[in-house]
């Protein structure tokens, strides 16, 4: 099975612009989460969606929004880009293991550079 896929791989934007990042989960996974990873730090949780509903939100401004589609793919939107939004954006899809644990798998990420 294919893993989590993300597009685009790299993106360069200027301050004030808007960006849309896309993610396709592993087949059969119904949950998608988004993370921001700034250089030298661990990933920071942004959103989680399950069955098209937002199930969790991290401490990010309203400029960040997301949605999940009926096929469980997801988009992350960021408005009014700031220099500080430059980061690796990671998408993860989740499944429940046979033991009932919530297990998460990551895509390769989208590298966003804001100039």
């Amino acid at each position, binding site marked *: 099975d294919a893993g989590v896929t993300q597009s685009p791989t790299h993106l360069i934007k200027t301050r004030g612009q808007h960006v849309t990042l896309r993610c396709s989960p592993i087949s059969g996974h119904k949950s998608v989460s988004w993370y921001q990873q700034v250089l030298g730090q661990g990933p920071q*949780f942004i959103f989680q969606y399950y069955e098209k509903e937002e199930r969790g939100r991290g401490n990010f401004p309203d400029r960040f929004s997301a949605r999940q589609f009926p096929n469980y793919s997801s988009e992350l939107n960021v408005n009014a880009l700031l220099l500080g939004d430059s980061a*690796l954006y990671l998408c993860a899809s*989740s499944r429940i293991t046979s033991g009932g644990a*919530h*297990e998460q798998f990551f*895509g390769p990420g989208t590298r966003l550079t804001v100039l």
Partner: protein
Amino acid sequence: SQQGEEDPQALSIQEGENATMNCSYKTSINNLQWYRQNSGRGLVHLILIRSNEREKHSGRLRVTLDTSKKSSSLLITASRAADTASYFCATLLSGTYKYIFGTGTRLKVLA
């Protein structure tokens, strides 16, 4: 803020040696997962350990969890140059679907 802290922040060892890295966290968790990341790319899932488990093995990896001390350790045995990467622990907070990552341990294995 990040609730997990990995220790050490950086580790350099010779090929064939064992590497041990530790993770501490602050609040109750459902499970803890370890990930590897090569050069700012995507995270590779290594192993999941549930809060009611104390030890798990996967190939050359051994993970322990001590919920009383709120800590976990990842042992990589017989390390290889290909193990050079950053390693992160991520904890699933109880009652949520939110994973909190630590700051990572940068492991360098010298050939």
